[in-house]
């Protein structure tokens, strides 16, 4: 599903990622662990084609995404990837419904199709009663569930989560882990970048990679 070969990423003079090589299969749950600044978020950003590598190759769903133009990269994300950000990155002034449908707007879906998809996600994440409420009025846990729902509205094959529990208490973090466990049953490939130890010994996690100073440690 995801192949990374000899990947390097530099920010000016600073080496963010160095000679990364890894392979992730379809339906696997992978945890990228490491301290802040170790390169976890940079790696997720490259896998999602939000930024381009300095050198090396990233092949996601048989697509050389490191060579995609901005517009193709965007469409690639829309069709294949759902991203859950650490800070959720929601539109706080908009409602739950408006946030969740936002990725699909360019595709101009039918109203019925949209309603069915959104209602299912709202039900799955137990936020049905928050549908018309502005996101800024929701709790941290509810905001994260909205962010997850948004990342799933396009039915992505791959889900990337960047420090998903950094802003959550233990109960909400465990709740998130349950959501991930549930998503694994639906054959989604999930990569979680985290330094939260709750993720390290989970039975449904297939691989754990550690990053240190931009390098993979096995």
């Amino acid at each position, binding site marked *: 599903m995801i192949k990374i070969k000899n990947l390097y990423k530099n920010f000016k003079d600073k080496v963010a990622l160095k000679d990364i090589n890894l392979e992730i299969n379809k339906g696997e749950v992978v945890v990228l662990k490491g301290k802040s600044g170790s390169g976890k978020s940079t790696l997720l950003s490259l896998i999602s084609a939000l930024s381009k590598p300095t050198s090396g190759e990233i092949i996601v769903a048989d697509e050389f995404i490191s060579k995609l133009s901005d517009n193709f990269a965007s469409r690639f994300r829309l069709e294949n990837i759902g991203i859950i*950000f650490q800070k959720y990155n929601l539109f706080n002034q*908009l409602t739950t419904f408006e946030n969740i449908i*936002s990725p699909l*707007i360019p595709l*101009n879906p039918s109203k019925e199709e949209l309603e069915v998809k959104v209602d299912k996600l709202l039900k799955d994440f137990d936020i049905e009663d928050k549908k018309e409420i502005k996101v800024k009025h929701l709790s941290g846990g509810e905001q994260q569930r909205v962010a997850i729902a948004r990342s799933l509205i396009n039915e992505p094959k791959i889900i990337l989560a960047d420090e998903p529990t950094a802003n959550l208490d233990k109960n909400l973090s465990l709740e998130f882990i349950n959501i991930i466990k549930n998503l694994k049953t639906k054959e989604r490939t999930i990569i979680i970048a985290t330094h939260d130890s709750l993720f390290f010994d989970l039975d449904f996690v297939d691989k754990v990679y550690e990053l240190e100073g931009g390098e993979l440690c096995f």
Partner: protein
Amino acid sequence: MINRYFLEFGLTTLYINKTKNLFIAGVLTFLVFLVMSFMFISSSIKYELKTVSSSMPDIIVSKTIASKQRDIELDYIYKILDIKGVKDVIPRVWGFYRFDKAGVNFTIIGLDNFDYDYIKPLKRIAKLYNFNDLNSSMIVGEGVKKILDKAYYKDEFSFITPKNKIKNVKIIGEFDSDISLFSNDVIVLKTALAKEILGIKKNYVTDLVVEVPNKDEIQTIATKIKLLNPYIKVLTMDDINQKYQEIFDYKSGVFLALFLVSIFTFFIVVSERLSGVSSEEKKEVAILKAIGWKIDEIIYIKFIESFYVASISFILGCFLALFYVYVLDGVYLRDIFLGFSDFKPSFEFVYHTDISVYAVGFFITVPIYVASVIIPSWRVAVMDVDEVLR
């Protein structure tokens, strides 16, 4: 097929930067209001002047000695009539009467039934009033009537003649001509009475109006009249139009200065937008890109957003300007355009605007603002947005 979600989402996302959008909408509305007020007023005045000038006499002959206008002898009527191409010469009696109490000047016009139609805009008076009944009474313009009423001259007004005598004249009527700018400060009296009030001698008049059927001959005849006497001053219709235009252009210039200040303010807002995008706006664009929107789709949504703001501001600004100019009668601004005499005429602006006026107002505001939003958004959209999202 139009993607209605874009239209709805564009409207919704205006809430993301609600305060900023409201501020910009306010500035834009004010700018459109100023621009459109100026255009409405100027098109009203131009229409008024055009109508007045279309009824101007072909040639006006007066006498000027030492740069001062003097009354002209009636004998010149026959001398001018001898010039080939002249159809008629009509004497006019008119002048200004200072009403110190109100600090204004009235325009006195002497009019007899046999020559009432030499000023076409006042023709209606002749239809409404019998000039034989005028004798020691007068018909006044709407503005004059208001001023006299305020000074408690309800039915009669006491003129002071140049011989220092009081002349009581009854007000028998009020007229409002189609051309309010022209007739507003006018008082119409019988010629003899007007002469007495203005101190014009028996065989003299203020000036002479010359009718020339062939308009191509006006300039030649004007030159011939000028040659009759070195003190004679000849004004053609074109000269008068030119003078009106100069007054209007001067007033427009004053407004232009005001207008430039507001345009300058607008461009400061625009350049502020172009030079930098707020972190909130950067984040908004970055999120859209991260969730799979293409650059052109981000630009499109920004276009819709800014078009909503600019269009609503434009429509609101137009309505405010219409209300201000045609309902509030352009209070304050009218003084800039019409305050060229002591008399402040209660001239009402007549709506006479075509679509091009709206088009000009639209094109100097809406596209500029839309561009000022789209360009920085495009800059952000083509950037590496990874950093913004962390």
